[in-house]
Structure formats: C-alpha cells, structure tokens
C-alpha cells in the first residue's frame, strides 16, 4: 500500500526521513576514549530485580567485570519493597566500591541511594527514570534516550500508515520510564499527524505472564481499525502471539527495546518490528563507566549523555542468535578490550 501521500496534514516523508538513520544500521558506538587505570580488585554490587531483563544485564556484566579485574557480586533484590531494601542494606554493609542498578523502580531505593551518594560510592543505572540525577553518576537508558525512543516510535507508526494511522501504545504505569515513553509517543503522534488516532492502554504489571495478552486482544477486538500496536516492554507480550492467533487478529506490532523473546518473535514473523536497544553495549558501557568512576576518571561522554546504540529491527535485518539480546556491534567486546588494553 502506498503510504507516501501527504494526506490529512501528515508529512509521511518527514517521518520517514527522521527514522531513516535508525533503519539500516545501528547508531554510533558510544565509548571511544581509552581507559587509563584498571580498577583491579574493586568490588561492584549488581542488583538483580529478578526479571529476565535484569537477568540479562547481570549475565552480560560478568565478562567485562572479569576483563577489568572487578569482583562483581550479584545481589537478589526482587521487585518487592522489602526485598529491595534488604538488598541495599547488604550493599551498604558489603563494603562495595561501586553499584550497578538495572531496572529497579527508583521509589524503592531513594533512601539507600542518598546514603551511597553521601558515602561517595559511585552508582550507575540502566533503564531507570525519575532517579535523583545528582546522586547517580551515569544513567543509561534514562530520560534522554526514552524521549528519543518515544518520538521515533511514533514517527515509525506514522510512516507505516500515514493519515490512516490508528495506533495504540501499551503502557505499564508501574514501570516509571514507560509513562514518559507513552507521553512522548502520544504527543508526537498528535503533533505530527493531527488527523491520526492514538490511544494509551494500561497493562498493569500484575498481569504480566497471565492476563496481559487478553487485555491486548480485547482492546484490539474493541478497536478493529487499529493499524499498529506499540509495546513499551516485552513482558507485556508474553503469550501474545498465540492469543492473537486464536482471536484471528492481525496488526502491526512494534516493541521498544525488545527482549530476547520478542526478538525471536520478530525473527519468526510473529511481530513486525522492534526499536532495538543494544543491551550488551549498554551493559559494557555501564561497567566501563563504573571502572572509570572508581578510578577517578571521567566516564565516556556518550554514556553521560545517554546516547545508546539503537536500530529498528525487522525480520529482514535481524539475524543470528538473539537469545542474549540484540547487538548492533557484534565486535563490541573487542572494541572495549582495545580501549582497555593500555590501562595499567
């Protein structure tokens, strides 16, 4: 179908142009400055929220930590208030030199963060928004990159269907960064395509892995004109393909930062696309930043500015084993090792 007309005040070409840099190749590699001092013997705590994404961060972080001589301790936090509090107590008691916190709601660890910051222990985060930026040295996948994703995904949807666009964004309000993502997404659609329809539907975190697919199916059944469904998180779609099949629904699907399960779904044609986030590079960047922070060096500028490696992934450009996530730079390890090679 031809989506290149400029009907209803939609500038499809502009949208297409805006997403073009992310269609065929990943965005730039973030770290280019060599490391000067090795953080040998430093102890780093990694908080594990228990979800598959956190598990991925933890698994990927092992290799760079080893290469840098960092002792990485994985501490189970779960997602419960007490679990997180107890885990941070262990962090505070454990005499760590640095802390890596992926994807934990900041509301659960405001107090220990203040204590860590007061104690001068560097903290880096990934996938956390709304955190006290003065206390966190490097926040990967935080506000700046989230706003960019919201905008680009909205433009992607407009680029697909032009003036007919009727898009739904699934948000999980409990996951703080998704609220921001949803806001930017809706704003962008209404700004760039006043005639298009956009709606935001909540998928509570408690429904992940159980009734979430039904919420999606019922929403799509109730809105049969929907052209694209955009998901803030992969967990929202656990069990979605078979639910869509049994309900005879066909719709374009786009995922923010697809996890391995979604990537596999893109590869086998269950899903249309994902706005890929290079988790391995992000994780290595975080470990690299910690290494620099613990040895009184400046972290990489792109890391501080939250510039991530991203690309729109489809069945056409996504190849290979995705079970550890997608990477735009299969040689990322070598690149980092090269940067670290001259340190002492």
């Amino acid at each position, binding site marked *: 179908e031809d989506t290149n007309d400029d009907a209803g005040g939609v500038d499809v070409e502009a949208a297409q142009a805006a997403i073009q840099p992310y269609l065929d190749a990943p965005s730039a590699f973030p770290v280019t400055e060599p490391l000067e001092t090795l953080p040998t013997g430093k102890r780093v705590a990694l908080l*594990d929220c*228990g*979800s*598959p994404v*956190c*598990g*991925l961060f*933890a*698994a990927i972080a092992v290799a760079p930590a080893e290469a840098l001589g960092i002792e990485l301790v994985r501490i189970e936090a779960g997602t419960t208030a007490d679990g997180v509090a107890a885990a941070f107590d262990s962090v505070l008691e454990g005499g760590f030199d640095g802390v890596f916190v992926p994807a934990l709601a900041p509301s659960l660890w405001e107090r220990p963060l203040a204590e860590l910051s007061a104690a001068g222990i560097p903290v880096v985060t990934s996938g956390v928004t709304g955190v006290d930026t003065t206390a966190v040295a490097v926040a990967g996948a935080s506000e700046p990159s989230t706003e960019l994703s919201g905008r680009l995904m909205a433009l992607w949807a407009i680029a697909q269907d032009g003036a007919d666009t009727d898009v739904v964004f699934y948000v999980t309000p409990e996951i703080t960064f998704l609220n921001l993502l949803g806001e930017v997404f809706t704003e962008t659609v209404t700004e760039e395509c006043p005639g298009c329809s956009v709606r935001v539907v*909540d*998928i*509570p975190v*408690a429904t*992940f*892995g*159980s*009734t979430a*697919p*039904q*919420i999606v*199916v*019922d*929403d799509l*059944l*109730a809105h049969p004109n929907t052209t694209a469904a955009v998901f803030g998180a992969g*967990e929202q779609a*656990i*069990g979605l*393909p*078979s*639910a869509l*099949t*049994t*309900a*005879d629904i066909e719709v374009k699907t786009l995922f923010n930062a697809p*996890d*391995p*399960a979604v990537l*596999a*779904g893109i590869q*086998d044609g*269950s899903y249309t696309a994902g706005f890929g986030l290079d988790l391995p590079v992000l994780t290595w960047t975080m470990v690299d930043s910690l290494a620099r922070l613990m040895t009184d060096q400046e972290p990489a500028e792109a890391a501080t500015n939250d510039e991530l490696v991203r690309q729109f992934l489809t069945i056409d450009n996504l190849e290979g084993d*995705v*079970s550890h996530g997608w990477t735009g730079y299969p040689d990322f390890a070598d690149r980092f090792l090269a940067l670290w090679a001259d340190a002492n």
Partner: protein
Amino acid sequence: MSQEPTIRSRVLRAIGFRNASAIWVLVVIVVVFSITIPETFLAARTWTSLLDTQVVVAITALALVIPLAAGSFNLAVGAQVGVSSMMVGWMLVSIGLPVVPAIGLTLAASALIGLLMGLVIVRFHIDSFIASLGFSSLLAALVTFMSGGRQILGMPSELVDFGTARVVIFTYPFLILIALALVCWHVLERTPLGRRIYATGGNLEAARLAGIRTNRIIVGTLVACGLLSGVAGVLVTARLGNSDPTIGPAYLIPAFTAAFLGSTQFKGGRFNIWGTLLSVYVLAAGVKGLQLSGAPTWIPDAFNGIALLVAVGLASSARLGGRPSLFERLRHRRVTAQPLEPLQQKDA
C-alpha cells in the same frame, strides 16, 4: 424424609442459586454485554479466544481440586506450573531432546515433585499448607537455577504449532482440558477411589478408621496434581513459544479462586470439577466483556472480587441462611410446599 423428588424439582434445584449461583452470574454477564456491546461480545472469535486463553488457568485449577478434595492445600501449584514450563523448554532447547521424550520426562518430573511433596506431608506430619509453601520457595529456586532468570527461546515448531492448532473451532489445549476434566470428574464422582478421596478430605481420622489408606490417598492426589500442573506447564510453553521464568506464580490465585468458587457450585460445598470449570469461565467472561467495553484497568479486578463474593454469597445464603432466600421462597410458592429441612450444625 425418603420421599422421591420429582424431576421438575430436581432440575430446579440443580440450577437454583443454591446449587449454581455462578450460572446466574453468567446469565447476567451475557445479557448485559449482549445488549451493550453486541458486535464484539457476540462475535465468534471472542468466544473461541475466551475458551482458549483460560485453558492453563483451568487445568491448574483442576490440578488444585484433586488435593483439595482430599483435604490438602497446595500453595505450590503455581510454582509447579512454572517449573514444568521451564523444564520442558530446558530439555527441548538446552539439552536438545525431541518433543515426545522431553514432554514425557517433564511430566514424570512434575509427578515426582508432587510425590516428594506428598511424602514430606505424610512422613514428617507437616501441614500441607506449610509444606506446599516451603515447596513453592524451593521450586522458585529451581526455576531460577534452570533458567538463570532468563527466558529459553526457540521451541521446536511442532510444540508451538500444537499449542495453537485447532480442530474445527477448538484448540488442542482446550480439547486436552476437556479430556482431563472428564477423567477427573469420572474418578472423583463415580468411582470408589474418588469417594475415598472425598472421605479423606472430609475427615482424615474417620477415613483412616474406615480402613482407607489416607496417606496413600494424600500422596496420590498430590502426584495427580503434579501431573496435571505439569500438563499445564507444557501447554504454557507451547502457547508462549518460549519458557519464561516469571509466569508460574501468577496462576496460583486464579486457580484457587476458581476451585473455591467452584466448591460452592453444584455439590454444595464439595470441591468439584464442573463447578471449577464453570467458575473459571464465568469470571473470564465477565472480564472479557468489561475489557471489550474499554473499562479502566481497575474494573476487571473489582469485577473479579464482586463476582466471587456475589456468587458465593448467593449460594451460601441460599443454603445456610436462617430463612429461605428470595429465590427459594418464590420457587416454593410455585413448585411445592416441601417441609423445611432440619436446621443442624454444619459438617464435622
């Protein structure tokens, strides 16, 4: 007292509030949504997807009914579903076994978990509530251990196709559910074994005095529960197309809700198969209608809570209330003036 009931009064009794309040709740749901959102609610695909999406919850609830009938709580049933879902994925992908042996081994392992739980309960005289709490922690550890907290991807297509293939309008998983329900119903309601199970649940001490090997019954029902939750877990993986370490526990509460609501249906307080299935689908139909109507996210939760209270409240007040419920009174006036039953204490 030994007067034979007429067929008419028997039918009326079978579908009265007292026996099947959930049917009335279902009727209300269907009528309301057929009026408010006829195009979507009455569409065929709404119903096929409804039948299909509840299969895992329904099988988990059946799995739970069996030990509950024998008086054992099993709070680990969600974790058991999670373990078998993970295990079948692990065998298929990480170990690379073919589909049939992988499923066979998974089911065997699931039954074994049930066996262990049963043995712990009867050998160490641990209350089933506590033992199964303990097991649910252990199984959560097992899932994390097998998965490292990550999904296992790339299930073979035979398994995934099986999870979504249809016979006419019913998916294979749904047909499996029906087959399992028939078997469980037959055993529980029709056979001496079923009677021994209910006797064990009714009064352990008295059942033992009646010569029933209650320990074997308890262990056996937990094995059966393990097996069924194993089937549920395999179907989860087949339907997801991957194994996800987080999905198990979410089935616990819906399964318990269905089993308990089901126990107030048809059999007047006994855990039973059809009441449980009915409950699963009544609650699901209500949620479906609300979601199709675009209700805010808190509405389905509120509906679940209210439906449960209303259905059980109708059933209990019809059964236990000092005076007959409105429905009973209307029925009495129309049908026959039966003598009141003696008001006696509840069961031992």
